């Protein structure tokens, strides 16, 4: 029965996603065209024009790929600085009813890098670290900006593919403003109000204090005037009874932040528990819409691609490759979480319930595994269940999803430009197989494009594996572990995978709010974002400048089932070759140990 309802929910999800892909794709075409028309024009055109005038942007001018990239980098630098400074000065700024202190330097750097790269890795617990102002401005602003930047870069790459003999690929500033005003803001307004209707909070009052019905007495370590623990003569910590009679109920402007966190595949939670928190994801319906929201734009970007290059079939073939890879991952994850943990079943836990550690009752196994698969497909990184407590192979799926390069739908924009790198590699491999010069939509793929694509793939692998290896042999790396044995290794691997892939989800037992982890993860994120974007922009510039060759009988078709499977094969092959050895040391070996009843 549960299984049948699960399959129906899966079908419903894919059906609705498919339904929104074309209309949203058509809307994207208008948004990403400076002369495009939308039904919001009467309201937003004046604001758009005013913005250009104020900032000194010439709306008639286009940019070369280099100019576009530099504008993007300048903007990212400035906004990252704003976020960093706001966090560092938090204690002195308003809207801080809980009186949270300034965020320490390494944590502020990590967080600023994290939100500016659309990763939204969180080394902190939001409800115990961030003031309302930090949540609403320092962090939410990056939810908008980093999402808009991702979509802009993808649009520039698609223009590069679609144009020929051209030396410009659009204007970064115009893309940024139009994406924010016409795409992100309107959807967020509706989405945030819907989330409140489901039970999400949106207020500015201090945390409420609820008087507990059942008071609880606990033993807490005794501390002296300096806050140090007092020990007796034998060196044991002295404890004193403490009565807990209130529960502090978190408040704040959550809905406005969460709507954008989801829509922009940011994923940085208002609370530490993220979308598992009953405030941050109150109902199965809010869960369903959230899952839809962080895939919808990436899905529509494939339609945008197809229409822009005048080959809708190509867009749909890319979509099909993404959907099939998503399905494969989801079915594996769902299966292993349903089978559950034999060690706990041995202790008397009902085997029919699967693995519920770290999961919420209202979502159950199916919606927890669906969310986990989608959030790592999409580079979102929000979680509605704790991935760290998944079974080994159930947890391998989110990990491997990110290692594929976040191209299964992927982050907004980032998913498409990442996937197009694989398309170039796939076309190149196909060309090698038949012994012809590879072509992609009438453009010759030459050594420059292939070199840049390989650079992107190498950065991905080296960033993840290099940092993980460093952490493994360092005291700072091992100090943060919450689990021992192979699962401890998985925690480190997941952290640097998530950072490099700009995902942001975690095997969250890892204590990453240390000087070393914050700093290394911040660099992993910055490398994973900008060292990929720059070569991709170079590809965009190079393709835009090329001459168009009419398709001949020897041209490799980039739509249809053959292409879809070639693309899937390329993505899986690269991912597997890079990461199987590491995965074997972590989740795979843990799987076998779990079934032999070994614990650590």
């Amino acid at each position, binding site marked *: 029965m549960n299984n049948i309802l699960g399959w129906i929910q899966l079908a419903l999800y894919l059906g609705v996603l498919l339904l929104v892909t074309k209309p949203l794709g058509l809307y994207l075409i208008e948004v990403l065209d400076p002369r495009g028309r939308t039904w919001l024009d009467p309201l937003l055109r004046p604001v758009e024009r005013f913005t250009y005038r104020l900032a000194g942007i010439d709306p008639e001018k286009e940019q070369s790929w280099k100019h576009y990239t530099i504008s993007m980098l300048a903007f990212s630098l400035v906004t990252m600085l704003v976020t960093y400074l706001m966090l560092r000065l938090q204690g002195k700024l308003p809207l801080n009813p809980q009186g949270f202190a300034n965020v320490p330097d390494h944590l502020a750097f990590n967080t600023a890098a994290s939100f500016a790269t659309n990763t939204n890795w969180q080394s902190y617990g939001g409800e115990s670290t961030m003031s309302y102002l930090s949540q609403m401005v320092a962090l939410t602003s990056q939810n908008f900006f980093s999402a808009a930047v991702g979509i802009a870069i993808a649009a520039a790459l698609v223009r590069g593919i679609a144009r020929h003999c051209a030396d410009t690929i659009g204007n970064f500033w115009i893309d940024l403003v139009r994406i924010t005003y016409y795409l992100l803001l309107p959807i967020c307004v509706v989405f945030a109000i819907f989330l409140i209707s489901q039970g999400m909070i949106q207020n500015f009052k201090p945390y409420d204090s609820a008087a507990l019905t059942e008071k609880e007495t606990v033993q807490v370590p005794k501390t002296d005037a300096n806050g140090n623990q007092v020990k007796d003569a034998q060196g044991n910590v002295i404890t004193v009874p403490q009565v807990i009679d209130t529960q502090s109920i978190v408040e704040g402007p959550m809905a*406005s932040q969460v709507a954008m966190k989801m829509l922009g595949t940011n994923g940085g939670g208002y609370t*530490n528990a993220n979308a598992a928190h009953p405030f941050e994801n109150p109902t199965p319906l809010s869960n369903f819409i959230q899952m839809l929201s962080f895939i919808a734009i990436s899905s529509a970007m494939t339609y945008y691609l197809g229409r822009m290059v005048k080959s809708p079939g190509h867009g749909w073939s890319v979509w099909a490759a993404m959907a099939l890879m998503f399905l494969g991952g989801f079915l594996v994850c769902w299966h292993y979480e349903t089978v559950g943990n034999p060690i706990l079943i041995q202790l*008397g836990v009902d085997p029919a319930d699967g693995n*519920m550690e770290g999961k919420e009752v209202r979502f159950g196994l199916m919606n927890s595994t669906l969310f986990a698969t989608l959030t790592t497909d999409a580079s979102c990184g929000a979680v509605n269940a704790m991935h760290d407590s998944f079974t080994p192979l159930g947890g391998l799926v989110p990990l491997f999803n990110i290692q594929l390069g976040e191209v299964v739908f992927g982050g907004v924009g980032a998913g498409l430009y990442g996937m197009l790198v694989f398309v170039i590699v796939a076309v190149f491999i196909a060309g090698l197989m038949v012994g012809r010069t590879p072509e992609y939509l009438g453009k010759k793929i030459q050594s420059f494009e292939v070199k840049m694509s390989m650079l992107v793939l190498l950065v991905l692998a080296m960033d993840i594996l290099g940092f993980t290896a460093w952490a493994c042999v360092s005291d700072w790396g091992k100090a943060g572990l919450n689990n021992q044995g192979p699962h401890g290794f998985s925690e480190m691997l997941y952290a640097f995978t998530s950072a490099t892939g700009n995902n942001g989800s975690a095997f969250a037992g890892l204590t990453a709010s240390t000087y070393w982890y914050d700093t290394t993860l911040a660099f992993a994120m910055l490398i994973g974002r900008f060292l990929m974007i720059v070569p991709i922009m170079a590809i965009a510039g190079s393709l835009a400048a090329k001459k168009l060759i009419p398709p001949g009988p020897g041209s490799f078709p980039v739509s249809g089932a053959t292409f879809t499977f070639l693309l899937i094969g390329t993505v899986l092959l690269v991912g597997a070759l890079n990461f199987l050895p590491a995965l074997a040391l972590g989740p795979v070996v843990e799987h076998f140990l779990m079934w032999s009843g070994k614990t650590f």
Partner: protein
Amino acid sequence: MNILKELKISAVLTLVLLVICCGIYPVFIFGAGQLFFPEKANGSLVYDSDGKPIASTLLAQAFTADRYFNPRPSAAGSNGYDPTSSGGSNLGSTSQSLHDAVKQRVADYRKANNLPDSQPVPADAVEASGSGLDPHISIKNALLQMPRVAKARGLNNDALKKLVDQYTDGRDFGLLGEPGVNIIKLNLALDGKYK
């Protein structure tokens, strides 16, 4: 192309977007929330007769006595159920600590509810939730706890079953998610503090 000019555009544009995306937008959502869904936007709070908050219907609290339905185990904060420190245990499948904790909880659950050793224990009753604040327990879990609560309160099982059904949140549209019994509403209703 001039780097300084790019930086200047960035700075001005950042300012404009901050005002719109981080000022006007969240305040507008605040207004809409307070206007249309004030109870939810303010935390779904339950108040006592003096008007002081005693719970949020969305956040679990520790109910350990026999006369209450017990929530799922919580890893939020050092004593559990702490909304300022939400989160799961993050223990992996091969963790010895997880093994020990679940072993203890299974024994406690069987003892509290007078269940035989052969009785499989619902996973949600002995495995911690993701948020540590999960207000729901599975229906199976609630039904196993029901005789204990009925006995402690001197209620008959049928009357209690009606209340359990009343505070069961079903699947949305009969399809999405899983049903669960909201134990905050249920326990407070048993005490006459929630209607």
